[in-house]
């Protein structure tokens, strides 16, 4: 079955299924969402208006048996940053979309009245239906209802109350294999879905399948790839402690932003560490090792039960735990898990929102460490859309502007996650230059030497650091197009067979002959496309800057400051 573009127009409630234009044929995931947004969305449009489009795309390998290939990308002009945006997530939707034969789902326009809708996709079919029953409901109720209406195996993309109210911290939830939710978290894409009055999208892949051009070659490459993932020691750490294993070491480095970025170490770090979380999970009969989609062989996710051994939440990542924990000085994992669950249900980004709480604490709206008040504000203010709820639900920048706080950790209005750029400068460059605002996943640790993007300048010079960050961002953009989870990166870094096997799988899937150089070129073209969109939207090099306080406030314990000049950062785009 040839892949198609599924298009839904919410202005006139029409749908179409179209052939894939040649320009988009070699793209998937982020490469595809960014190319479609760049081609079809006027860069200066209002992100919540009818001219913005919301695009979903499975990765190039999604829907196949390739390990860890089940990531879905969503893209649009972001209402949070005003830039182009791609956000990706696990869950079951990427595999469902691919099996439906949907290369991308493009949602455009806007209803002219206040009616709400749902969309459903099947192989060869896309339907818009009026939705009344689930309006005002959280994601958990939506997933449950969608499973009843369709069938248990249906994939679901949904928004909670935050998305309905078009808060710029709103995310899009993605049903996972256990009927819990993952999140297309960053950049407020839930608000774009809300602006189009779509409560949920059901993906029924019954009868669909993904064609593989060379099945034997695909199997052989996947075997090599999977072995590289399984054998790697980072996979062992991720499968045992999740990404939260980072708490202790980042704290040790003085890079764990604490108390709204006023320190680099958190006294309560041991209470929220991955090691401690593992113990609590085991003690309560949860699962320390769990996959966000079928086919994940690393399984960094977890099932976290409450004190009584009852399911509380799953898939808590280091960055979310850091944001609710160290940044807000909450040293209790049960309260963090409670907040994680509430934010999943409301449908709001747990990084953006928790950092917003940190800024609100700085402003005196609530006390640092007061998780009880955080929970109250989430359930009684954000979920109900009160004035305070909207201020916080619109993110850290919104809180800073409202209350006159100057220590507001955002780049292009998106909250900086989990790694203080004064203590880990290489990450600071990525935060500053990313096309999508501060995002730790934009420049991942990919095997730059295999892709030939390691750079030529002295790696210890500032020029060398900028060059390496660029190489990592190029490589990451390419990987984000495959549907692969970024945690494949460590195996790709250390095992020379891993990345070539990934390229072999792409070739076997489509019957093509990509080289490592082609993959690099793909990554470069994605970055350039995104950058061009941002420039046309009015962004300049002056937006590629970290907030001033990083230059003027040394962060304890090492008392480092951010010392890259604008000119040094601007060399990033010299390619």
């Amino acid at each position, binding site marked *: 079955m040839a892949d198609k573009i599924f298009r839904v127009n919410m202005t006139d409630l029409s749908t179409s299924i179209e052939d894939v234009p040649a320009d988009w044929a070699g793209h998937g995931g982020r490469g595809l969402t960014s190319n479609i947004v760049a081609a079809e969305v006027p860069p200066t449009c209002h992100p919540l208006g009818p001219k913005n489009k919301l695009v979903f795309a499975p990765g190039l390998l999604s829907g196949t048996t390739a390990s860890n290939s089940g990531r879905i990308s969503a893209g649009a002009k972001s209402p949070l940053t005003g830039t182009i945006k791609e956000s990706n997530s696990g869950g079951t939707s990427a595999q469902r979309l691919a099996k439906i034969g949907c290369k991308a789902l493009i949602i455009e326009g806007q209803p002219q009245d206040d009616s709400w809708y749902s969309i459903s996709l099947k192989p060869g079919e896309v339907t818009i239906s009026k939705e009344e029953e689930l309006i005002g409901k959280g994601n958990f109720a939506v997933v449950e209802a969608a499973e009843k209406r369709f069938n248990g195996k249906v994939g679901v993309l949904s928004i909670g109350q935050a998305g309905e109210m078009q808060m710029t911290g709103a995310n899009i939830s993605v049903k996972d294999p256990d009927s819990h939710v993952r999140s297309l978290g960053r950049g407020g894409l839930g608000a774009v879905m809300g602006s189009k009055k779509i409560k949920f999208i059901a993906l029924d892949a019954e009868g669909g399948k993904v064609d593989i051009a060379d099945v034997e070659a695909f199997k052989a490459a996947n075997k090599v790839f999977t072995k590289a993932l399984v054998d*790697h*020691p*980072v996979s*062992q*750490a*991720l499968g*045992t*402690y999740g*990404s939260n*294993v*980072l708490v*202790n*070491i*980042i704290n*040790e*480095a*003085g*890079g764990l932003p604490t108390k709204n970025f006023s320190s680099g170490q958190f006294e309560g770090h*041991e*209470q929220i*560490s*991955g*090691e*401690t979380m*593992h*113990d*609590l999970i*085991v*003690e309560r009969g949860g699962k320390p090792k769990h996959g966000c989609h079928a086919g994940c062989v690393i399984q*960094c996710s977890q099932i976290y039960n409450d004190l009584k051994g009852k399911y509380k939440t799953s898939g808590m990542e*280091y960055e979310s735990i850091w944001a609710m924990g160290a940044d807000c000085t909450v040293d209790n994992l049960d309260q963090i898990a409670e907040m994680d669950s509430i934010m999943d249900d409301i449908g709001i980004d747990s990084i953006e929102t928790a950092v917003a709480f940190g800024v609100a604490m700085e402003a005196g709206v609530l006390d640092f460490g007061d998780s009880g008040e955080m929970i109250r504000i989430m359930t009684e203010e954000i979920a109900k859309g009160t004035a305070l709820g909207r201020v916080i639900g619109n993110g850290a920048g919104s809180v800073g502007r409202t209350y006159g706080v100057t220590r507001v950790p955002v780049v292009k209005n998106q909250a900086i996650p989990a*790694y203080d750029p*004064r*203590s*880990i*400068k*290489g*990450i600071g*460059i*990525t935060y500053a230059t990313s096309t999508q605002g501060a995002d*730790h996943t934009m*420049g*991942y*640790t990919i095997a*730059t*030497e295999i892709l030939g993007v390691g750079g030529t300048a002295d*790696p*210890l010079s500032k020029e*060398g*650091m900028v060059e*390496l*960050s660029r190489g*990592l961002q190029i490589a990451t953009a390419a990987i984000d197009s495959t549907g692969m989870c970024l*945690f494949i990166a*460590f195996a790709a*870094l250390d095992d020379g067979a891993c990345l070539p096997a990934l390229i072999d799988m792409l070739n076997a899937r489509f019957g093509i002959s990509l080289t490592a150089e082609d993959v690099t070129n793909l990554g470069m073209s994605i970055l350039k496309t995104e950058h061009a969109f941002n420039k046309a939207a009015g962004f300049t090099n002056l937006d590629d800057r970290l907030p001033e306080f990083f230059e003027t406030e040394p962060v304890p*314990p*090492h008392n*480092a400051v951010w010392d890259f000049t604008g000119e040094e950062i601007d060399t990033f785009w010299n390619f």
Partner: protein
Amino acid sequence: MTLVSKKCEPQPMQAIELIVKTDALPRFTTLLQSGIYMELDQGTSIGELLFALPGFSEKYVKETVQTIFLNGLPADTLQQKLFGKEAVIAISAAMPGLAGAIFRKDGVHASLRTSTAAELSSQDALETPITIRLKLFNMIAMDRGKELLANTCIVTAKSIGAFLNYRPPLYTAILKATLNGERIDTSILQEILSSEDMLKLTIRDK
């Protein structure tokens, strides 16, 4: 531990021994994230320190201990010598994320660090031994913690107290507790473990 400095005066220290249920023992190893203390001769290297720990073969240290922090900064070599009054060393197995790759010992992305641990100066060497706090993170505590705890570690009473108070079910996994060889009830452990004092801790399952 065979490396403990002969120069150090034996400190009067309480000794606590816990016999715990076998299936709960791995969960006690997490207390090593708070660190164990030792006094070493000035100029001992990080490698010498690690190789002397029970279960830390050269192969294990070289292959598995992929991240080392010395006084809060990433270190690249096991040869680094320790001088001065005190130092904090943290060790971890492979870490995820770009940050994990940046901090990895001799990692390809080490150039993205803000700073790397400098060699400690032998000019800071004292007549007295150096006090080391060694923190074990990630798989290291799980892999080697049982042996370490069975061999008696010096820890702060407060850190074990905080550890147990955050995990009340672990109290019920303690089959027998002794203080300086005398059996005690676990209910009085909490009081003993609220002080700032160092104590000798042994935990095993038989």
